[in-house]
């Protein structure tokens, strides 16, 4: 192991593995990474155990790319351990950044999730009604599992984070730019999100006519006109409230943005920003000065599952954070 080489680690907490694939999607650029850095920990690719990480001196790792949210006690332990062992900690991808889709579990608590997954699902056969426990006595000894928390947390709700790479997964272009900045020692100030300062609308090739809408369509209810803004055609698109860097890929194939890039710069949260964007475009047809409560209700009721729609990738990091716990 060369002394001049950077030491890099990758870790996954509550994640899907897609962030690891995004790293591999660097293709030949990953050879540059290997040339300038030694990978000292990466469970998906190399055989290093947790005890090896625990044995590393403090700040031994130069940069840790941490993906996944914090869902159980093992992930919390690994976040704290890797923070202690790393000079720079990067929240890599939407889960570590804002909670992402697994963060929608904050609409439930541990019991509701365990009951559904292990007892109630149609595909489950569990006559002994076994659910995970932190400690299980077996003939040979005691088996331990991490504690599953009621609430999903982001990485920076758990430990101090230096940088954020947004996206589900982060676009390869953004990863490459980040790697280049690391290589050239040109990282921006601590706390920066390593992505453009614009919204998906700024990258979207579709045309906006500043049209108002009175009816919301679900994607299967309408074939959108090509090249025209989907939101202005009544299809909910989270682009105005979502940070760019993806090249508006979904929009180029007629798919509305669902918001994986997370909140825009200077926006406190994505859901409220999208509700605000929608409020400025959605209204009754014709010039109507006064809206009755019924009018407003009728307009709003067109939006199915507003929470899941506006906070699909960011519930844990939002002002709402989670559904109120039943004490």
């Amino acid at each position, binding site marked *: 192991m060369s002394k001049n080489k950077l030491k890099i680690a990758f870790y996954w907490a509550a994640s*899907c593995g897609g962030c690891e694939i995004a790293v591999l999607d660097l293709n030949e650029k990953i050879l540059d990474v290997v040339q300038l850095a030694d*990978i000292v920990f990466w469970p998906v690719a190399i055989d290093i155990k947790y005890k090896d990480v625990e044995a590393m001196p403090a700040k031994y790792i130069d940069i840790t790319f941490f993906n996944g949210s914090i869902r*159980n006690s093992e992930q919390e332990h690994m976040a704290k351990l890797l923070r202690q062992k790393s000079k720079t900690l990067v929240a890599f991808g939407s889960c570590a950044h804002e909670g992402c889709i697994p963060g929608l579990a904050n609409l439930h608590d541990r019991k509701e999730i365990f009951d559904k997954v292990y007892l109630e699902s149609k595909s489950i056969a569990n006559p002994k009604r076994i659910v995970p426990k932190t400690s299980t006595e077996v003939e040979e000894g005691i088996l331990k599992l991490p504690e599953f928390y009621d609430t999903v947390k982001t990485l920076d709700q758990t430990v101090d984070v230096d940088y954020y790479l947004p996206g589900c997964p982060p676009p390869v272009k953004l990863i490459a730019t980040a790697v280049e900045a690391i290589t050239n020692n040109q990282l921006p100030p601590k706390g920066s999100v390593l992505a453009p300062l614009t919204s998906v609308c700024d990258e979207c090739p579709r045309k906006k006519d500043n049209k108002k809408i009175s009816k919301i369509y679900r994607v299967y209810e309408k074939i959108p006109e090509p090249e025209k803004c989907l939101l202005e055609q009544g299809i909910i698109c989270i682009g105005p409230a979502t940070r760019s860097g993806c090249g508006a890929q979904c929009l180029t194939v007629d798919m509305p943005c*669902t918001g994986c890039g997370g909140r825009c710069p200077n926006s406190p949260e994505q859901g409220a920003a999208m509700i605000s964007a929608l409020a400025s475009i959605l209204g009754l047809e014709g010039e109507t000065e006064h809206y009755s409560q019924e009018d407003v209700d009728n307009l709003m009721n067109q939006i199915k599952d507003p929470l899941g*729609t506006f906070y699909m990738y960011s519930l844990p990091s939002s002002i709402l954070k989670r559904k109120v716990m039943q004490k």
Partner: protein
Amino acid sequence: MKEIVIDPITRLEGHGNVSIFLNNEGEVENAYLKIPELRGFEQFCVGRRVELMPILTTRICGVCPVSHHFAATKALDAAFNVDPPSAAKKLRELMYAGYIIYDHLCALSGFRKI
């Protein structure tokens, strides 16, 4: 009883650890695979818009998202009680064939690069 712990298991997608128990003769008495990982898609997909299922379920596994995309799409075919047209079926097959090539390349060459 002596316990050997392999934590974590590595070089595969997912989280796990293994406990191997040895008897007095030093032979393996029993072994347990433990999965310290759950996110609860079964619960939090309930209540979401049905057309989002292919997008939500691809996040079950980012290494094989295409398989989950197809499973959700087939569930939607059933929910809407529709039989997709021939062109759609062929496009799905093409996407899946492309994914099989991508996935094998990823496993064979991707991880070997490291």
